[in-house]
């Protein structure tokens, strides 16, 4: 199903979507764009390149409660927080971020142990993807093409949107998407010419150049394994690294978390909170031993995990080339430059 709407009528579309479920979409904030739950249809703003934090936070929030309790009360009174399964519409997701959900599914639902919180939200969600502008050059941080992701890949989305001048063309990709699209009134039918434009954009997206040439995941996997004990290489690569957590928190495929009990004024929650392999205490053991005390060990772990161990274990690089880590790094470390250096080493 192919439909279209004028960009200036975007709020009619988002308002209709709000009638179908909780709408989460890009919103302009002080420091840039982020995906937020929409309370006013006019908040949605598609004039963004990419968001600060990836939309993984929609399915895997930075803080998630599992159990709520009161201190001093019997254990039996503690309440379990049930997974949410209310309909959710995730609007305006870039193709590289859509791809990241498939990688995250590996960890949260596809390898035996199923995370009910992730899965409930994922199943209840309808994804509406949005192509990058293939007429404008990619931002210098991005390298999704290197990882085989097009700037306008509709795969993984339920509905995919492409902008044509002042119009937004919407095409259903899955049955779920078709059902949602069919239920929205006020959308105009799209012409055959719009359909051709959509297909041309998808094709152009596949040839869309981000800054690196294509890579061989197997070769990288092997090379990083070979380099593991080359301390000189990793020390040099991590000389500038501050060992903060920006890269991991902004990353769409970083999934590590910590389980904490947090209590305030007698009310407590057992919750998970994002953690980062770049933090010193990430690997601190109860004995006091810490296997990764040095910055280079932590950076090696981060890069090795994404580009080597993950490929060895699950057959896919755990990175979608969105460029957020590079964009936000306070000292300008570029993850893929390190991989390139490794290949030369």
């Amino acid at each position, binding site marked *: 199903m192919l439909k279209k709407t004028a960009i200036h009528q975007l709020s009619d579309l988002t308002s209709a979507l709000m009638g179908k479920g909780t709408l989460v979409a890009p919103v302009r*904030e*002080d*420091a*840039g764009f982020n995906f937020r739950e929409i309370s006013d249809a006019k908040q949605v703003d598609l004039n963004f390149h990419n968001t*600060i*934090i990836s939309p993984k936070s929609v399915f895997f929030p*930075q*803080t998630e409660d599992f159990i709520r309790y009161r201190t001093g009360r019997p254990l039996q009174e503690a309440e379990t927080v049930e997974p949410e399964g209310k309909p959710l519409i995730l609007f305006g997701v870039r193709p590289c971020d859509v791809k990241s959900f498939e990688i995250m599914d590996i960890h949260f639902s596809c390898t035996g142990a199923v995370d009910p919180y992730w899965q409930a939200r994922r199943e209840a969600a309808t994804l509406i993807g949005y192509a990058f502008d293939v007429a404008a050059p990619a931002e*210098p*941080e991005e390298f999704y093409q290197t990882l085989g992701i097009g700037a306008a890949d509709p795969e993984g989305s339920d509905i995919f949107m492409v902008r044509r001048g002042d119009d937004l063309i919407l095409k259903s990709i899955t049955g779920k998407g078709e059902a949602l699209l069919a239920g929205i009134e006020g959308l105009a039918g799209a012409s055959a010419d719009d359909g051709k434009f959509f297909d041309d954009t998808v094709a152009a997206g596949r040839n869309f150049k981000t800054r690196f040439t294509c890579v061989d995941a197997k070769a990288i996997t092997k090379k990083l394994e070979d380099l593991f004990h080359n301390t000189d290489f990793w020390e*040099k690569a991590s*000389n*500038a690294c*501050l*060992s*903060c*957590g*920006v890269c*991991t*928190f*902004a990353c769409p495929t970083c999934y590590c978390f*910590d389980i*904490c009990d*947090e209590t*305030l004024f007698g009310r407590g929650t057992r*919750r998970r*909170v994002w953690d*980062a392999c770049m*933090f*010193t*205490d990430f690997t601190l053991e109860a004995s006091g031993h810490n296997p990764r005390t040095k*910055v280079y060990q932590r950076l090696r772990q981060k890069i090795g995990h994404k580009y080597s161990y993950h490929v060895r274990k699950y057959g896919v690089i755990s990175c979608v080339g969105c460029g957020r880590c*590079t964009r*936000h790094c*306070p*000292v*300008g*470390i*570029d993850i893929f*430059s390190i991989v390139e250096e490794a290949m030369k080493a």
Partner: protein
Amino acid sequence: MAVSFQQIEEKLKTEARRLLESGQVSLVLAWGRGFDEKHPMPYVAKGASDVDGIVFNEFCTHNLARYLVRYPRGTKMAVAVKAADSRAVVQLIQEDKVKRHDLVILGIPVYGIKNPKTGEIIDGKTTCGLYNPVLYDILIAEEVHGQPVSSPYAVLAEYEAMDQDARFAFWKKELDRCIRCYACRKACPMCYCDPCFIDQNKPKWGEKSPETPGNLMYHLTRFHHLAGRCIDCGECSRACPVDIPLYLFHKKVAKECEEMFGQAAGMSIEDKPVLVNFRMEDSDKILE
């Protein structure tokens, strides 16, 4: 400036090569190429062959004093510093985290340094309003004179016009956006505690989740841990991925300290940090 960024880069390379070849230092902390021109990176030259990697341009914002505490005590190091960065070196010497005789300070008088994210010139707003390093062994360019010098506290006017409730509301709103990536503390040359109080869990000082109680605990404590120590380089604010104006609080505390104790942080290695020093003539205003 009398010299260009390019000339500064050449002089940095010359001095770095000389220091490394003579064995006077075992490493030089400077800036190197990043993934593009707008993103130079902190860079460590450990031998003459690394020297060609050094760059200097208008986007060299980073305060390299932050890396001094990473190397074992006694390591002979050269460090390239701009004005604010030199104050961090001085403050670290005052706090005995590095020894003066282990350092060769390459001072760079400079203005017009830009934040790569916003393109904004950082001289007045988030640096200490100085153009010349306060301490150096080798001057990399001629001292800057005749540039307009504004008070580092001038940007506080709007903030100080707020009453107590408005200030609390302001900080609550700003700090609620914090994602607890700790880039601010990691970029800070004066944040060297291991472990940081917020990472401790016995006792636990603050919550780990990015919500109001933990965010206030983390930031307000950090602001106060830097009282009389913050040298106003602005690295915390530039490192922040969500642009929280942390520098405002630091400047406010720095201003209060300077008014009470007559001493700004990191100006002289003869000074003692105000909050660890007792003098009979010290102000009692803090108790009021």
